[in-house]
C-alpha cells in the first residue's frame, strides 16, 4: 500500500514534456510504475507509442537508464541486460542492487514479442514485464491485436456493414503467463493507482520473472474524449470486463470487487470503437456474447480465488 502523500514526494522518473496524446493511459501507467519502484531501476521498451512519445531525439522523458532495440524484443533485450548485470555482479564489478522493468504494448507482448517474452520468462531472467495494454496497435494507427476485444472497431477489424468489428475474443495473456509458473502476476488498470503501485512493489520483491498487465485506455483508438481516461478505466474494472486480480505464489486474489457489477454496455457506450454495436443488426448478439464471455471469465476467476485463494 502506498499513500499519495509519499508518492508525491518521490522524484518523477518519467518526466513531463513527453509527446503522448492528452489523456494517454499508457503514459500514466509508466509514470506510476516508475514511481512505485524504491530501488535503482533499469528499463527496456519496445517500438510502439511509448517509445515514440518518450524518446524522440534529442529529448528523453526517461530519468532512469532505458534501452529500446526493436518491436518484438523488449523481453529478449531485457534478457541480455539482466544477464550482463549478473555477470558484473559475479565479477564484483557492480555493487548496487538493480531491478529491471521491461515494458511492452499489447502488440509487443501478446503478438510479435510473445515468443521472446515466453522464452525470457522460462529462462528465469529476473525482471518485471509490464504490458501496457491499450487493446490494439495504436502507434501504427489502431490495428487489431490479439488483445483487442470482440466487437471493437480497429482499422484492420473495421465496423463494416457486414462484419461489425473484431470477430474474436481477446487472448487471455494472464493465464498464459501464469502457466509459466511465475512467482507473481497481476492485472490492473490505471484508474486504480494504489492497486497498480502495490502490484509493482510486490512484483519487484518477488523472486524471478514477474508480469503485470495494465489496461491503459487510449482516447484516440477507443474514441472517447481525453479527459475520460480514468472513468473509462474504472468502468472496465467495474463491469468486470477487466478483472483486477493477482496471482501471488500460487494464490489467486481478486483485488477489486465492484460494489455492483455493471452491465458491459456501461463500458462500451462511452467509446466510439463500440458505437456500431448499438446500430448494427448483429450488434445486440455481439454485446450479448461479450457479456456472456465476461460473466464466464469472472465466474471462473471467482472460483479460482475461492479454491486457490
Amino acid at each position: 500500500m502506498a499513500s499519495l502523500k509519499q508518492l508525491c514526494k518521490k522524484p518523477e522518473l518519467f518526466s513531463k514534456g513527453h509527446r503522448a496524446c492528452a489523456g494517454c493511459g499508457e503514459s500514466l501507467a509508466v509514470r506510476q510504475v516508475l514511481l512505485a519502484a524504491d530501488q535503482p531501476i533499469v528499463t527496456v521498451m519496445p517500438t510502439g507509442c511509448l517509445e515514440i512519445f518518450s524518446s524522440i531525439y534529442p529529448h528523453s522523458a526517461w530519468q532512469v537508464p532505458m534501452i529500446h532495440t526493436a518491436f518484438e524484443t523488449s523481453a529478449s533485450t531485457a534478457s541480455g541486460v539482466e544477464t550482463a548485470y549478473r555477470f558484473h555482479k559475479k565479477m564484483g564489478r557492480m555493487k548496487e542492487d538493480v531491478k529491471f522493468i521491461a515494458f511492452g504494448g499489447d502488440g509487443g507482448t501478446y503478438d510479435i514479442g510473445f515468443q521472446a517474452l515466453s522464452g525470457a520468462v522460462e529462462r528465469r531472467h529476473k525482471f518485471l514485464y509490464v504490458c501496457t495494454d491499450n487493446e490494439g496497435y495504436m502507434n501504427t494507427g489502431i490495428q487489431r491485436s490479439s488483445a483487442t476485444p470482440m466487437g471493437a472497431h480497429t482499422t484492420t477489424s473495421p465496423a463494416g456493414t457486414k462484419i461489425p468489428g473484431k470477430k474474436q475474443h481477446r487472448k487471455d495473456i494472464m493465464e498464459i503467463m501464469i502457466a509459466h509458473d511465475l512467482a507473481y502476476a497481476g492485472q490492473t488498470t490505471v484508474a486504480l493507482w494504489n492497486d497498480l503501485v502495490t502490484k509493482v512493489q510486490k512484483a519487484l520483491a518477488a523472486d524471478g520473472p514477474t508480469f503485470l498487465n495494465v489496461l491503459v485506455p487510449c482516447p484516440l483508438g477507443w474514441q472517447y474524449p481525453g479527459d475520460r481516461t480514468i472513468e473509462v478505466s474504472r468502468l472496465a474494472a467495474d463491469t468486470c470486463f477487466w478483472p483486477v486480480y493477482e496471482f501471488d505464489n500460487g494464490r489467486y486474489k481478486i483485488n477489486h470487487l465492484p460494489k455492483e457489477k455493471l452491465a458491459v454496455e456501461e463500458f462500451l457506450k462511452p467509446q466510439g470503437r463500440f458505437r456500431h454495436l448499438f446500430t448494427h443488426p448483429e450488434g445486440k448478439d455481439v454485446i450479448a456474447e461479450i457479456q456472456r464471455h465476461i460473466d464466464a471469465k469472472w465466474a471462473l476467476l471467482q472460483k479460482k480465488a475461492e479454491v486457490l485463494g
Partner: protein
Amino acid sequence: MILAKTGNEAMAYAMKQINPDVVAAYPITPSTEIVQIFSNYVHDGLVDTEFVAVESEHSAMAACIGSAASGCRTMTATASQGLALMHEMLFIAGGLRLPIVVPIASRSLSSPLNIHADHSDSLASRDSGWMQFFCETVEEGYDSLIMAVKMAEKCSLPAIVSIDGFILSHCMERIEALDEQKVRDWLGPYKPNWNLLDLDRPILVGPATLQDYYYEFKRSQIEGMRTALPKVQEVMADFEKTFGRGYGVLEEYRCEDAEAVALLMGSASGDMRQAVDRLREQGGKVGMVKLRVFRPLPHELLRKTLTRFKTVAVLDRADSVNSFVGPLYNEVAASLYGAENQPELLSYVFGLGGKEFSPDDAARILEGALAGRKDETVTYVGVR
C-alpha cells in the same frame, strides 16, 4: 600447442580463450557445435561467461545487444537461416555501434533447404554495418575470431567471422593454438564507451530519430566503417608481433608477374592455390588474390592491386539474383571504376549450397582468364 581441431571446435576454443562476458546463442547447422562445445566450457567452469540459451536467433541478437549495451564483451554464433532471422537486429547492433563478435559457419539460404556452404548468409547482411572476415583454413578462422574481438572494440563495430560450413566447420585441420593467458592479456578487458548500467549517468539507448537527426547518426556510423580499415590493419600487425602469425587484408599468391588472377573469399582459396601452382608449373602467368576483409571493403587496395593484372576472374560463392552478377563482383567492379589500366573482369558464381568445387574447376577458371575468354556475363561453375 599443436592441436587437431575442426573449424567449429577451433572457433569454440577461440571463444574459450577470449572468455567473453556474455554469450547468447541458438543452434543451427553447421555452427551448432560452436555453441555446444562452448556450453561445455561454461558448465565445466573453464570460462567466466554467462551463457544464455535463448529461444531463437532473433532473441539471441537482441540479448547480445542488451548485454553489449550493458558493458559486456558479447558473442554468439550462427549460420544461414539463423543469421537471416537476426537480420533486423544486425542493423540495430550496427547502428548502436556495439562490438558484438559472431563466428558463422557460412551456409546457403533456403529455399530449397540446404545445409552446405556458400556465402549467401553473410553477404545478404553486407549492408548491416558489420565488419566481415572470410577465412581459408581452420587456423585462420581461429586467429581471425580472436583478432575480430579487438578490431570490433577498436572500431566500435560488430564483426562476423566466416568459416565455410562443413568444408571448414566440420573438417579437422592442424592448428597451432595460442597460449590462453597470452590471448587474454593481448585482448585485455573490454572498455565500453558507454554503459546502460551506469546508474550515475542514466542514458537512453536507441531513441527514435526523425528526419532531423537520423541521417547524422547514420553518417557517423558510415564514418566508423570508412575509417575502420587502418585500425583493422593495426590489429593484424599487433597480432603478428605478439603471436608471430601475419595476415593481410588481402593475400596475394604468386601474383608477382601474373597476367590473370582469380579473386575470391573463403575455403575455396585452397583449391585456387593448388590450381595456381599447377598452371605455374606449366608456365602460366597466373595468381590468386584472396580477399579476407569484405567489410570494411578495402576498395583502394583492391584498385591498386587489381590494376596490375590484365584479367581478373571474380569468384562469387553467392548470387545477387539481380539478373546480372554476384555481390563480390559488383563491389570489385565499383572499386575499379574509373581506374587507369582497368583489368578485364570475369564473373564466376560457384559452389552454391556446397556444390563441389575442385582444383580442376579452379584451374579451368584460370585458363579461361588467361585466354581472356568472356563468352557469358556470368559463368555458373559446375552447375548441371
